[in-house]
């Protein structure tokens, strides 16, 4: 069970985020839920790169070869992913601010400009 639990956690986080966006009554909350979906990708990436007993792959105070280290590739990918997530969230929140100004609401149920 332990060997798949971290992967299941990632799946759970992703689906929770999706549920949040679909049922959201507030666009700020929906953007937050999108960030939750993204956290699933961090968890999955880091879980995939873990090595039993591994430490951080930084050799300033670890003698190379003395201990196992976790996979540095997924760490770098997760870092990229974090930056992507933060910037997308900033941009979407900027749009939410404008939606709230132009429509006078942030409830997705009350936005009716685009349909049909």
């Amino acid at each position, binding site marked *: 069970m*332990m*060997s*798949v*639990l*971290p*992967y*299941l956690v990632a*799946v759970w986080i*992703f*689906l929770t985020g*999706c*549920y949040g966006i*679909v*049922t959201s009554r507030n666009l700020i909350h929906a953007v937050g839920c999108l960030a939750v979906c993204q956290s699933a990708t961090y968890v999955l990436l880091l*879980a*995939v*790169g*873990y*090595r*039993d007993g*591994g430490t*951080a*792959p*930084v*050799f*300033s105070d670890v003698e*190379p070869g003395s201990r*196992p*280290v*976790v*996979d*540095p*590739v*997924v*760490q*770098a990918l997760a*870092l*990229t992913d*974090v*930056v*992507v997530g933060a*910037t*997308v969230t*900033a*941009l979407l*929140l*900027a*749009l939410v*601010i*404008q939606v709230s100004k132009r429509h006078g609401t942030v409830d997705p149920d009350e936005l009716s400009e685009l349909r049909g």
Partner: protein
Amino acid sequence: MTRRVRRWVLAVGGAGLAALLVAACPALPPFGGATHPYGDRVVHESLARQTANTIASVNFDQRAFDTLGELGILFASVIGTVVLLRQTRDERRAAPEPAAVSLPVRRYALIVLPVALLTGLYVVAHGQLSPGGGFQGGVVAATALHLLYLGADYRALENVRPIGLYEVGDALAASGYLVTGFAGLLGGTAFLANTLLPYGTFNTLASGGTVPLLNAAIGMEVACAVVVLLARFLDQAVEIEKESGS
């Protein structure tokens, strides 16, 4: 769609996707496994180029092209936010009101500010040696400035933060990254090749060839970008209001 239909679609779609993903989990290699071929190669190459922080080696040397794209994303979102949160025709700018700040908060903020700023710069400078680097340090340094907003008021922050300069700094840092890349191409090998500078002595500030340069460019870009992004949002909250005054 009515809320009920939406929930049904969600239930069917979510259940299907959940089943698919859960079925895939047991087929993944067990958590904590020892097989990481790419990771092992990365560690090997990173040590060969005297870069102690292998993640910095991935970000600024082995997969530096990804970081270039990432820099583009950050840069685009800064321009995008500047465009989206501009002052529109029906809005005006109100001078921010000075606000009273309780003395302990003010003292705390002013003491912590230089410490936080220095920490940020330290984290950037040691990117190729210890955990951290341009991204992490840049964020710390940029948010440190905003302690002025908490400790004094918005005008004090605006005085140390001429936004135009930070926008230019953002663009220059991005250009710096690109110019380093072009230098690799003109220096005879390939775009973004880390072959121009000596790799130095392992575990010292000058190790890793161009890694510290690219790392510094990203540090500057992130710091400037975060300052500009926060400024746009703070402007909306503090300064920009509707023409009619409501």
